[in-house]
């Protein structure tokens, strides 16, 4: 077990350094001059060059890369070119917002998805199954930003019920969580249904029923537990996809999270922030995958006892 964990951890570290390198390379390949971006559209060329030198951007790329990686090892993510604040501070401020939204979206997804999937599996072939799966289908086919626009149109523009910008108390979580959660809920519902169907067809379920157990006990105590493996896997997978989809959602709802931070910084060529943000997202992604793998390892007795 420990070896499994350590091996995975090692992979994660290598992937992270690779990600940092990749983002460094790609970001410096993007056309657009950071010094000019910060100097603004009216600065003279001398001012731009002076600014470039003061930020160390005139050094050769290999030197900049070296100092970046060394800094990373010391936990230094660099400084924002625009406002001089350490990237770590900015990231540390934005990350909890992103994670809170991700978690609440995941909660919505689980609360919507699993019951829907169980319902569909139990009522297989009947109307409830068809309706549930149709809903789930629409959920995975809809662009999330369209759902966001529709929700805003309905609840904010017409009914003026909930806030849809920034964070103003728990109500602000509703719309963004639903937007992000629906897609994940749909996938989870489908996977739950498939997983449950597989399990419900097994012999031991028939035995449990034969023993006279209540149907609800059969479904929840036995079937769901055994389907948990595939459900947990899909939850882990969806979490990662959710993090990616948050970029657009954060932009629409003006949510002060990492996704929006990266997009803003990309537009103003504040490369240190973009790299820092991407690294943190990749880190989060990797940790979640690791946890999912671990959970999978624990849940699946086949792996546990190997």
């Amino acid at each position: 077990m420990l070896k499994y964990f350590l091996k995975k951890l090692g992979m994660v570290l290598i992937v992270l350094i690779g990600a940092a390198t990749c983002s460094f390379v790609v970001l410096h390949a993007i056309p657009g001059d950071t010094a000019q971006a910060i100097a603004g559209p009216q600065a003279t060329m001398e001012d731009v060059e002076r600014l470039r030198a003061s930020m160390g951007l005139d050094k050769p790329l290999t030197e900049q890369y070296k100092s970046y990686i060394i800094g990373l090892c010391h936990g230094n993510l660099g400084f924002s070119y625009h406002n001089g604040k350490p990237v770590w501070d900015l990231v540390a401020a934005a990350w909890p917002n992103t994670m809170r939204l991700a978690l609440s979206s995941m909660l919505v997804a689980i609360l919507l998805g699993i019951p829907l999937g169980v319902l569909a599996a139990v009522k297989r072939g009947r109307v409830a199954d068809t309706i549930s799966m149709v809903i789930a289908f629409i959920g995975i086919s809809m662009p999330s930003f369209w759902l966001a626009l529709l929700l805003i149109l309905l609840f904010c523009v017409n009914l003026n019920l909930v806030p849809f910008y920034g964070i103003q108390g728990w109500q602000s979580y509703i719309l963004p969580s639903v937007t992000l959660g629906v897609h994940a809920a749909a996938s989870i519902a489908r996977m739950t249904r498939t997983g449950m169907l597989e399990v419900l067809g097994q012999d031991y379920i028939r035995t449990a029923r034969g023993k006279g157990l209540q149907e609800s006990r059969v479904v929840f105590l036995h079937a769901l537990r055994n389907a948990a493996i595939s459900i947990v896997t899909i939850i882990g997978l969806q979490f990662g996809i959710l993090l990616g989809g948050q970029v657009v959602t954060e932009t629409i709802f003006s949510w002060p999270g990492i996704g929006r931070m990266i997009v803003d910084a990309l537009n103003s060529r504040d490369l240190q922030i973009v790299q820092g943000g991407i690294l943190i997202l990749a880190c989060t992604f990797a940790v979640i995958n690791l946890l999912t793998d671990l959970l999978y390892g624990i849940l699946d007795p086949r792996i546990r006892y190997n």
Partner: protein
Amino acid sequence: MKIIKKILHNPSAVAGLVLLLFICLCVTIGPLFTPSVTDQNLLNQFASSSAEHPMGTDEFGRDVFARIVMGGRYTLISGIVSVILGLAVGIIMGAASGYYGGACDYIIMMICDIMLAFPSVILAMAITIVLGSSMFTLMVAVGISSSPIFARLVRAQFMSLRDATFVEATRLSGASDLRIIFCHLLPNSMGPILIQGTLRIGSSILLAATLSFLGLGVQPPTPEWGSMLNSARQYMWESPMLGVWPGLAITVTVIAINLIGDALRDYLDPRTRSLL
């Protein structure tokens, strides 16, 4: 023949096929019957649905229905082409990785893991910005972001088939590596590849729409559903329906494709075949 019969028995597959055929029909023939996509009529902005303009007009007075129908071409083409690109890259990576194994496998899988460590939207954004904004770079960016998934799939398939008897036999008969890969291993892996490919068309369309929504992608006045949604955002007050039509079009198209993909999977994947 058995496949076709089996598929026709599956109601959702039939629904999907019919829908897709309908969309393709609209998209190929439609533009011949609708008014021009670029004709601006600044006196008729934000008109609501009428006989002349079934979906109303946009901020330039252009007919929305015509733009949706025309935009379908770009959407479908970009979805299919980006998946083909992703498949091409993914198959090469996965084949090399799965067949040769060892260091080759290690390095390629490391690259895939790194690519998968980025949220796909950010990866695609970075590629589009580096290569410049256009239809083509959009397809490249979306294609590249789905290639690691194909690579992994192909690799898994190859690794399980690599030591099969028929492969050994072919090798013994003197076939070259390339021949084995492309004429024997690949055809036998087509099942999962086909399923994943079809499903990826749907997610590629969504990713492309997301990028266009963020402002990267096609040039004006090209009607593309994602960028139409982006412009609609500004005019939510004047004309809320402007935001409904393109999103509806995307959803319906992706539903159709997913239905077909699901049906394919139900048929080809032995695990779920028993559940049919």
